[in-house]
């Protein structure tokens, strides 16, 4: 595999940075971005000053106000942040087509492998990019350069709120070793707790454990942790997939219901629509979320995930039904339900060389392809996935 050069560009406290560009008087003022009129509003973003006072993302606003009484509270303007994010992506797109963007969070990964003949060495590209973003958008991003996304992201976390870092190829393990495990991306809270119990403090502590040792407490995740602690990450920069994209379908029942079959029928119908849309867009969904609205006004959302992503109606239906089982825990009638899928991956046209796919999966794919052809010709409701529960 060719050595990769991945640049991570990160505008720290993106929402705050954008608000400060719009209103210069907010510079150096502690800021909290949160819905101030919601009864239980939580912090969407905060400035470094507020962070230093103890304010964190997701914290109840009432608590955040107590931690940082001097903070100026601003209502989130998601569309504005989205617009700024689009402008940011536009600025960097001239350097490489391989740009992966986060949601409206000021994070960008760029794969600049092989672009040296056009744009020069990768550190120079990153430096120029920062200059360009500062000049055109008045945003000052942190930049880092690494041989993969994981290392580049950790490097950004090390230097933020401003600065830059280059982690040379081959230096990944030495770079990560002394760092706190809090800087390693992708850890679940339960895993982090387990690591504290095992007195694992630094990434190096984790890296000293073998793959077999990690499999015992962390099971399937042991393999990821083994590679991540050594700075290994082969995930590609996912260009062309808007990670903020979410496909959603909603249904409100004519009469509140308690019949699980009714919900399953509705969800199956949604799955067919979503699956077809995914196949048209040539993307795979990794997460399916079912939200149930109860007749007493409460709502519950639960999810089911497929790490590899899928656009197969049958697999999507299984995920949806799993999420339904997880979300329906109350003995109260259901008023409506929503099915959404997100965390998309581009669908690779290349087949696996070594892993034989199950016959059933191949048959299902052929069937869905034929169904899509019929729907394309005779309308999207002409042929649907049946429900037999």
């Amino acid at each position, binding site marked *: 595999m060719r050595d990769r050069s991945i640049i991570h560009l990160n505008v720290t406290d993106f929402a705050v940075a954008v608000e400060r560009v719009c209103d210069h008087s907010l510079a150096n003022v502690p800021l909290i971005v949160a819905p101030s009129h919601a009864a239980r509003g939580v912090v969407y973003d905060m400035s470094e000053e507020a962070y230093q006072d103890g304010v964190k993302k997701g914290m109840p606003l009432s608590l955040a106000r107590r931690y940082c009484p001097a903070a100026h509270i601003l209502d989130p303007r998601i569309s504005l942040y989205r617009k700024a994010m689009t402008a940011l992506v536009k600025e960097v797109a001239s350097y490489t087509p391989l740009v992966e963007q986060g949601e409206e969070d000021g994070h960008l990964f760029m794969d600049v492998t092989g672009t*040296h003949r056009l744009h020069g060495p990768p550190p*120079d590209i990153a*430096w120029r990019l920062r200059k360009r973003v500062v000049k055109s958008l008045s945003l000052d991003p942190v930049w880092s350069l690494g041989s993969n996304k994981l290392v580049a992201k950790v490097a950004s976390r090390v230097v933020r709120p401003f600065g830059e870092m280059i982690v*040379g190829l081959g230096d990944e393990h030495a770079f990560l070793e002394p760092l706190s495990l809090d800087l390693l991306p992708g850890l679940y809270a339960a895993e982090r707790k387990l690591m504290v119990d095992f007195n694992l403090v630094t990434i190096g502590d984790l890296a000293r454990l073998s793959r077999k040792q990690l499999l015992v407490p962390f099971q399937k995740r042991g393999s990821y942790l083994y590679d991540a602690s050594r700075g290994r990450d082969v995930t590609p920069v996912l260009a062309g997939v808007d990670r903020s994209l979410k496909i959603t379908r909603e249904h409100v029942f004519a009469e509140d219901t308690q019949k699980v079959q009714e919900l399953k029928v509705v969800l199956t119908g949604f799955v067919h629509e979503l699956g077809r849309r995914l196949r048209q867009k040539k993307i795979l969904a990794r997460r399916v979320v079912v939200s149930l609205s109860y007749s007493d006004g409460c709502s519950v959302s639960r999810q089911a995930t497929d790490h590899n992503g899928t656009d197969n109606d049958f697999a999507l239906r299984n995920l949806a039904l799993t999420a339904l089982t997880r979300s329906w825990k109350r003995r109260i009638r259901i008023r409506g339900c929503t099915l959404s899928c997100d965390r998309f991956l581009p669908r690779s046209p290349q087949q696996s060389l070594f892993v034989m796919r199950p016959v059933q999966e191949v048959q299902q794919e052929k069937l869905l392809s034929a169904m899509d052809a019929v729907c394309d010709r005779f309308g999207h409701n002409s042929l649907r996935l049946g429900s037999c529960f």
Partner: protein
Amino acid sequence: MKNFYESSTVDTLCPVLVGTSGYSYTEWVDGGFYPQGTRTPEMLALYAKSFPVVELNYTWYQMIQAEAISRMIARAPKDFRFAAKLTRTLTHERDRDWKQELQHYREGIKPLQEQLAAILIQLPPDFTWSVKNRYYLAWLLDSLHDFPVAVEFRHVSWARDSVFAELEQRQVTLVTVDAPNIPKLFPYVDLVTNPSLFFVRFHGRNLQGWQSGNMQQKFDYSYSKDELQQWNDTHLHSLRTRAEKGIIFFNNHVRAQAPANAHCLQALIA
């Protein structure tokens, strides 16, 4: 190889080390300098087989870090020399706390001490001869007085006797440049301000590229053998009679032209 730090008499031609500005370029694999399939961590050891000195470019982009430098030194022979560029936050983007930045730099460069040929202070084109900038440069030179330092100006306003006299008095090396002939650019000056060391940088003579703002075009130039021969016979000969030692770097890295030209000059000097 003769020890670079053995002093030589000034009447004879002093020893010269020839190298390139940077060594970690993947395009040098395509350009034929590194064998096909060479990976980045292997480059320094391969480079050191061809050249005895290198100019570290990446220290300009990010603050030098002792751990990273230590790992890098371990990949090179003991007698290999490094010149390290001063970080851009001390030359081009002076909006951070200078003193703290310089302290970080001094700490970061510590592992290099034994093998440090010079610290290169490359100043930007908008760093003109003004009272404020003169004070800043004086402060920088004072703070680095215990290191071998070379200064490269990019603005013609610094080409004046008072500047040269001050550098001479401080024993600071003025970088001799070979670059396109542009009116505002600091010109070639036949001067040795520090008898301990002269420092030459070949930037190429791509006039159009220099003005394009694109690094790949700016340093896209290959010196002909005649041009290098002429340089060796005139300028280099003159410099070598007035200093104890010298280092020469080729900055025209595009398409591996720098190592090719450095090889050629090495052969001419020999």
